[in-house]
């Protein structure tokens, strides 16, 4: 602070003068000699009362006036804490506001304020300093990064967009958000462009680039101590809790328990940072069980996590003949081994025969059939309903397709008789399977003992996704209700070829698992993940904060779908065609374990930010001082008029 600033602010000390004068006047009028005092009537109460009431107003006005003058004197030198945009030669500015709406922004900063609210406040201050002609874009850094407002000069639209923002439990996509922000302001004609990053910087690496990043609220990136339950899965009578902590200090002395559990069992956390798994016994009679983390930390909202009514793991039914489909080295069938390798958390359920009751499909999202020997009507009906409800069924056809018993068919996969072609070409058209990725080329030069001939069958409206080299169908897909049916013309038994030994086999299985996960909807998902539903389905979702909106959107493959994106962690109740379903949304553990990084540019950027924050309030203060002056004059006039009017009355009273 320079001498001038100190001197100007020192003027403010003169506020003491009217206060002292007021106290003196208020206390007692100055005693003066007056010989005919005996002829003067006393009117003490009136004098005191008036002096008290009127002088207080005058005192306040004069004190404010002096304070205003002091601040006006110091204003050119005083740095105001309000954020504002500095302009080079008064030119318009284009800036992209990157607001981090991830879960970690819901934590409270050191001063007790919520990070997200601080970020929104800073954004509002910056927006308030914007002028006509400035271009503003708003990008949200919660995963996936989204463009809330494309670059526009409509300041009202920007204010509305800011007002619509809310907290979420998404994970962070800083890198994507920054890239999106830079892209959004790249096309505007303004020369002065900036990207304002309002984030705790706990996300992906921030890359250098143009326009440079400005982090005007660096205190958002202050590291905090926090632990969170980011997942709770039921495994029989056990519950597996996944807990993430920022540091050993955050985990020390804390334990996980089941809310409402009378036994009061606690699973203490190991005093270390990172992710840890804890097991707890759960009472089957407990309704809507919920896990809770005792103790306190910077973010209380993630210390509880609901437990899904059923297993959160992806349920997979595998029907494979152990004698034929197993590897030479023994163990479970290849199909099971492959699924176990791809989805470690998947709940594998080997079955010998297809269920006749659709309820037996409950808790499962994927059915893998290896070399089916026909499907009975009861099993077909149950399978159809399973698929219609969002299940995915895959049939790897083998030599048993020709041995279907009476009354059994391969419907709903294909209609009609399927022949096993013992001698067939061993190549799969890699071009037709290009959508699978680079693994598709591994299906060249297969050593096969045969294949299922699908060319003569009715695919029941299904589409051929891949073909053999001779254009025979290799993979067909049929949409049914919310689910899908896939038919593969090769079995998974190594006795019939080396198809299951190729990488493409695993890639295909991964594709099926992904389809199952997407269509069925995992019982547990991360906030920000999209849920999709068939276009014709009647879907309503109730979340922790009321109804979740369901939108209609076009998928990349051409089919329109309905979708909803839960952004808050908690328990969701879905009704899909009047069938209730419960899902649990959790936070991404990386939101907890990822620590804030240093802002790009370090101290230089911080200093630049501070310089940009100065606000000259002289005009406003000048108006205030003028208004106070007029107010005092008005009060004096009012006082005189009132006194003249009241004097006779007061005289009569005394």
């Amino acid at each position: 602070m320079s001498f001038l600033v100190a001197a100007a602010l020192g003027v403010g000390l003169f506020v003491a003068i009217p206060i002292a004068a007021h106290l003196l006047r208020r206390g007692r009028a100055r005693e003066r000699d007056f010989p005919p005092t005996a002829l003067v009537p006393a009117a003490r109460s009136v004098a005191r009362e008036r002096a008290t009431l009127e002088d207080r107003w005058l005192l306040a006005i004069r004190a404010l006036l002096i304070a205003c003058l002091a601040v006006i004197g110091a204003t050119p030198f005083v740095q105001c804490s309000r954020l504002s945009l500095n302009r080079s030669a008064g030119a318009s500015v284009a800036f992209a506001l990157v607001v981090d709406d991830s879960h970690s922004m819901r934590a409270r900063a050191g001063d007790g304020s919520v990070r997200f609210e601080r970020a929104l406040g800073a954004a509002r201050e910056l927006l308030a300093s914007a002028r006509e002609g400035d271009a503003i874009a708003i990008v949200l850094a919660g995963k996936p990064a989204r463009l809330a407002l494309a670059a526009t000069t409509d300041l009202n639209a920007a204010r509305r967009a800011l007002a619509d923002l809310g907290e979420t439990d998404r994970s962070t996509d800083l890198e994507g958000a920054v890239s999106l922000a830079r892209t959004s302001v790249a096309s505007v004609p303004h020369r002065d462009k900036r990207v304002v990053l309002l984030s705790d910087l706990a996300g992906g690496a921030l890359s250098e680039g143009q326009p440079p990043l400005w982090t005007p609220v660096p205190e958002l990136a202050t590291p905090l101590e926090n632990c969170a339950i980011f997942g709770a899965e039921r495994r029989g009578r056990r519950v597996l809790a996944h807990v993430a902590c920022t540091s050993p200090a955050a985990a020390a002395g804390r334990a996980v328990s089941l809310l409402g559990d009378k036994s009061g069992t606690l699973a203490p956390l190991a005093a270390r940072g990172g992710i840890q798994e804890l097991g707890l016994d759960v009472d089957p009679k407990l309704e809507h069980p919920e896990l809770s983390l005792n103790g306190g930390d910077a973010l209380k909202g993630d210390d509880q996590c609901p437990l899904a009514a059923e297993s959160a793991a992806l349920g997979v039914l595998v029907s494979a003949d152990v004698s034929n489909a197993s590897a030479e080295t023994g163990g479970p069938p290849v199909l099971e081994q492959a699924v176990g390798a791809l989805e470690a958390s998947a709940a594998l359920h080997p079955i010998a025969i297809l269920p006749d009751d659709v309820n037996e499909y409950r808790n499962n999202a994927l059915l893998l059939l290896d070399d089916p020997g026909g499907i009975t009507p009861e099993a077909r009906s149950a399978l159809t309903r399973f698929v219609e409800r969002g299940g995915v069924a895959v049939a790897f056809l083998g030599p048993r397709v020709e041995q279907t018993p009476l009354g059994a068919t391969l419907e709903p996969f294909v209609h009609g008789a399927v022949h096993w072609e013992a001698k067939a070409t061993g190549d799969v058209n890699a071009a037709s399977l290009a959508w699978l990725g680079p693994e598709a080329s591994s299906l060249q030069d297969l050593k096969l003992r045969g294949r299922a001939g699908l060319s003569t069958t009715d695919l029941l409206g299904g589409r051929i996704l891949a073909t053999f080299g001779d254009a025979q169908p290799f993979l067909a897909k049929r949409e049914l209700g919310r689910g899908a049916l896939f038919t593969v013309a090769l079995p998974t038994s190594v006795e019939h070829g080396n198809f299951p030994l190729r990488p493409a086999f695993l890639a295909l299985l991964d594709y099926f698992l992904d389809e199952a996960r997407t269509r069925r909807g995992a019982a547990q998902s991360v906030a920000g993940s999209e849920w999709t539903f068939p276009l014709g389905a009647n879907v309503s979702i109730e979340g922790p904060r009321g109804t979740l909106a369901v939108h209609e959107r076009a998928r990349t493959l051409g089919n329109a779908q309905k979708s909803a994106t839960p952004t808050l962690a908690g328990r969701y109740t879905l009704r899909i065609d009047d069938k209730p379903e419960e899902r649990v949304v959790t936070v991404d553990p990386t939101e907890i374990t990822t620590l804030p990084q240093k802002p790009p540019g370090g101290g230089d950027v911080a200093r630049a930010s501070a310089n940009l924050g100065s606000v000259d309030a002289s005009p406003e203060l000048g108006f205030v001082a003028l208004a106070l002056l007029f107010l005092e004059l008005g009060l004096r006039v009012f006082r005189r008029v009132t006194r003249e009017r009241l004097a006779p009355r007061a005289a009569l009273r005394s």
Partner: protein
Amino acid sequence: MSALRKALDWGKLAPLRLRAKTVADGVYAGSHRSRRRGAGIEFGGQRSYVPGDDLRFIDRHALLRHGTLLVRQFETETDRTLCLLIDASLSMSYRGEQAPGAKYAYAALIAAALCKIAVGAGDRVSLDWFGGERTVELATAGGREAFERVVGALETAQPSADLKSDLPAMERAVARVERRAGRGSTVVVLSDLLDLPEGAEVAIGSLGARGKTLTVARILDPTEVDFPFTGPLHLRALEGEARVETDAAVARPQYLAALEAQAQRWSERLLSRGGSLVLLSSADDPVKAVRKVLDSVGGLI
């Protein structure tokens, strides 16, 4: 009492001697004829005889012609004594912001001017006080020397003393004046009539008895006349223990009414004793003030 208060504030009224002469010069002064009829040179008219009249003045020509007893009257020039009674109590030391000097200073100027006029007309002058310090009573005397002594005494005296509860002191002063003033004397009392003891009206009014002419000149400061204060006030009397906390706007009309009522009371009291009250302000022109006093006395020819 502080030393500051003891030092009289003469203000623009000093020096007293020169100012008094200037004032006296401004007033038309000359010999005054006595209204008293008696032995003399110039015929002054006739009146009916009443028992006790000097038989030498019976107009025998009128008796013989008309058969009525008449007495011849003659006018004669007489000397008259001017008795000055000055209030030197503490309240007379007051000087407001608008006044040229303290009330006592103004009273001293008026007294000196009257003295000058009287001496110039060949009358004799006496000086007495009530209240005050270093006061010197001057016996009846005439001539230039008398004026010098009066001025000296006026300059020496200091307003002091609280007469609020000292009626005997006032009665003693009145008694001295009564002894000095014979029939036909003029008594001029110069006072603010404030903070005087109970019974002061009676005592001063008694000076108008036995053929004396009494004039009381009430001298007030302009502040006392107008009460020009504003806002809350805390007032203290110079004599007595009176202290008042009030609001100027509320108190002003009541104060002025009380002041007028007091003057009216004095006026009525003096009138009943053949005296008169002259109201003066220390901001008034001294020449006009002296004329008012002389008019009241009725001695101006």
